[in-house]
């Protein structure tokens, strides 16, 4: 039985700001508070550090929302290059935004207080307070259409999975800051479970509607399922960091379920609420009921804007691990061992 004194073991230590405070030192202050958003963020940093440091864990990153056009592109590419992420699952739009910049386009600091009808007349699109021009999309479309031609010719009409598709696109891009390019070079799979619902899908129409076009690029939505479930299955432990939620989060959780593993670690950063029953706001405890995450998993949900929360997490954990920290993911070690045998 829990006694009264058991509830009162850990007093809140108040946050103290000194002149030279590093990000991780601030995070330790948050941990000392242990309360509200600060406490959850500090816990998220501990869990992410544990995931990366655990030699048996495969780290999945789920990306949704507009964090890539808003400034998180290089951060994600760097995480892939440092192998702080082993598998990326994201919306098609996130990788379209990456590709727009990879071929020379830009996202601009804008405003949410603006005439959208005027923006329309100027061929400028708005993502809350970020602007992107139609011509940056169209230039990408035109290049993608040519890439689709070449990929389809190479595969002779054979169907690709979404992660084979992203690998081929990453191969065509040259920008070292591109997420797609970094994933191609580091052999990190990027899965796009809702690839059709993005410019990648609508450009397929441009590609396939050309007169006498043969072969047409074919994607098989089901082909990813054994691949991602197989990764979960082979890895002794699995962890996920979720930015937003939606289809990418569900894909990772379902792969963990299909492989009968359940996730060992989970960090979800979201602004969504659980009451409406949508996945993005659903609690990690709810996922326990499905077997998607283990009952004893190391997990936390941070309610906040991922564009603010996630860079703090990455900065804090990078500082803890130090510049010389080199991670060899579990599945990579397995592959190297197999090659040696």
């Amino acid at each position: 039985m829990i006694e009264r004194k058991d509830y009162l073991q850990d007093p809140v230590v108040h946050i103290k700001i000194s002149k030279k405070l590093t990000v991780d030192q601030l995070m330790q202050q948050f941990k000392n508070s242990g309360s509200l958003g600060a406490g959850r963020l500090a816990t998220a940093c501990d869990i992410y550090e544990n995931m990366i440091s655990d030699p048996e864990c495969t780290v999945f990153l789920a990306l949704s929302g507009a964090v890539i056009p808003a400034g998180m592109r290089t951060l994600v590419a760097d995480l892939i290059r440092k192998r702080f992420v082993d598998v990326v699952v994201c919306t098609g739009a996130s990788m379209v935004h990456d590709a727009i910049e990879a071929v020379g386009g830009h996202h601009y600091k804008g405003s949410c207080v603006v005439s959208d009808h005027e923006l329309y007349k100027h061929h400028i699109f708005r993502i809350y307070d970020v602007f992107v021009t139609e011509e940056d999309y169209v230039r990408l479309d035109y290049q993608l259409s040519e890439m689709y031609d070449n990929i389809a010719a190479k595969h002779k009409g054979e169907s690709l999975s979404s992660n084979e598709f992203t690998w081929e696109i990453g191969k065509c891009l040259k920008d070292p800051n591109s997420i797609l390019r970094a994933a191609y070079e580091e052999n990190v799979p990027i899965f796009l479970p809702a690839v059709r619902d993005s410019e990648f899908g609508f450009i397929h129409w441009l590609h396939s509607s050309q007169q006498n076009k043969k072969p047409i690029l074919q994607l098989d939505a089901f082909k990813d399922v054994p691949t991602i479930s197989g990764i979960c299955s082979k890895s002794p432990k699995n962890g996920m960091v979720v930015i937003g939620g939606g289809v990418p989060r569900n894909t990772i959780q379902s792969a963990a379920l299909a492989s009968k593993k359940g996730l060992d670690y989970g960090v979800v950063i979201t602004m969504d609420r659980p009451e409406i029953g949508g996945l993005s706001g659903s609690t990690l405890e709810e996922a326990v009921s499905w077997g998607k995450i283990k009952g004893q998993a190391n997990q936390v949900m941070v309610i906040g804007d991922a564009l603010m929360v996630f860079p703090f997490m990455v900065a804090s954990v990078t500082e803890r691990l130090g510049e010389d920290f080199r991670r060899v993911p579990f599945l990579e070690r397995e592959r190297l061992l197999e090659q040696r045998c």
Partner: protein
Amino acid sequence: MKNAKTLKCCGNCDAHNSYDYPSKIFCSTRHAQNKDPIVDTLWCCEDYSRVCQECYCVREALMEKEGREAAQR
């Protein structure tokens, strides 16, 4: 600039997308026909069909053209 909205040109056609704003258009119809899809905003072809929503492409392309001609004079 009064006639910018009513001019029969690519910038007022419903197959137009901005390619090099405001002077160049990406034409999805020409792309489907395997023709060079990049055309001048102020050009026009036999597939012209008036755009359902107005934009500033033609107005800005005319202004740019006038500026270019004035500089040449």
